[in-house]
């Protein structure tokens, strides 16, 4: 079972955890992304995330489906947020349950690694003296 959400409001970590709960699970692994206060030692004030929403949802679903095929997992929730986020706020939550913890760790890491590579979402970092689209340039 897969739950994909792209939201403009705060993500609920407990909702993701509740979705992956099942009696067959021996455990769940949850990744909680948070906005860090600096990038390469430069102070960050806030971030802005934008998404190509329909495609972002499709790509997140593909990742969860691939993780379900490749790892022995039970349920996966991937929630991503867009809009302006301050330091400490949560742009992404990924929860994965499995009968055995090794699969849950591997699948959760696969999901976040792949999300960062393929999902059409863009992050703009704002500093005291300007802003930049993350990863845009070599």
């Amino acid at each position, binding site marked *: 079972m897969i739950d994909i959400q792209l939201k403009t409001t705060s993500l609920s970590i407990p909702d993701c955890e509740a979705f992956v709960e099942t009696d067959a699970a021996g455990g769940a692994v949850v990744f909680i992304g948070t906005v860090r206060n600096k990038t390469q030692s430069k102070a960050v004030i806030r971030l802005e995330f*934008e*998404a190509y929403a329909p495609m972002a949802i499709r790509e997140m679903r593909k990742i969860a489906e691939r993780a379900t095929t490749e790892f022995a997992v039970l349920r996966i929730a991937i929630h991503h947020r867009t809009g302006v986020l301050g330091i400490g706020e949560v742009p992404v939550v990924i929860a994965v349950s499995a009968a055995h913890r090794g699969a849950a760790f591997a699948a959760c890491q696969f999901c976040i690694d792949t999300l960062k590579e393929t999902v059409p979402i863009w992050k703009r970092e704002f500093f005291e003296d300007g802003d930049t689209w993350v990863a845009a340039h070599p």
Partner: protein
Amino acid sequence: MNLKILTFGIARDIVGGSTFSFTVARGTTVAQLKQTLLDRYPTFGNLSSLLIAVNEEYGDDDTIIEENDDIALIPPVSGG
């Protein structure tokens, strides 16, 4: 044929709008569209990558673009 192209992130800044119209010949492939865009907006050449989405899927170089396809420019993604 006339395409309406969506832009995101730095691609929107380069083009100067979240959508723009672009005329290409029928039978144009994704690779040809990308080259035409690079000719028109050389700044795209400075990006780490530029992909073209066709109907909400990443297009292959040889994907042929049809009229009314949903086309979007995908500069390097940075979600998560």
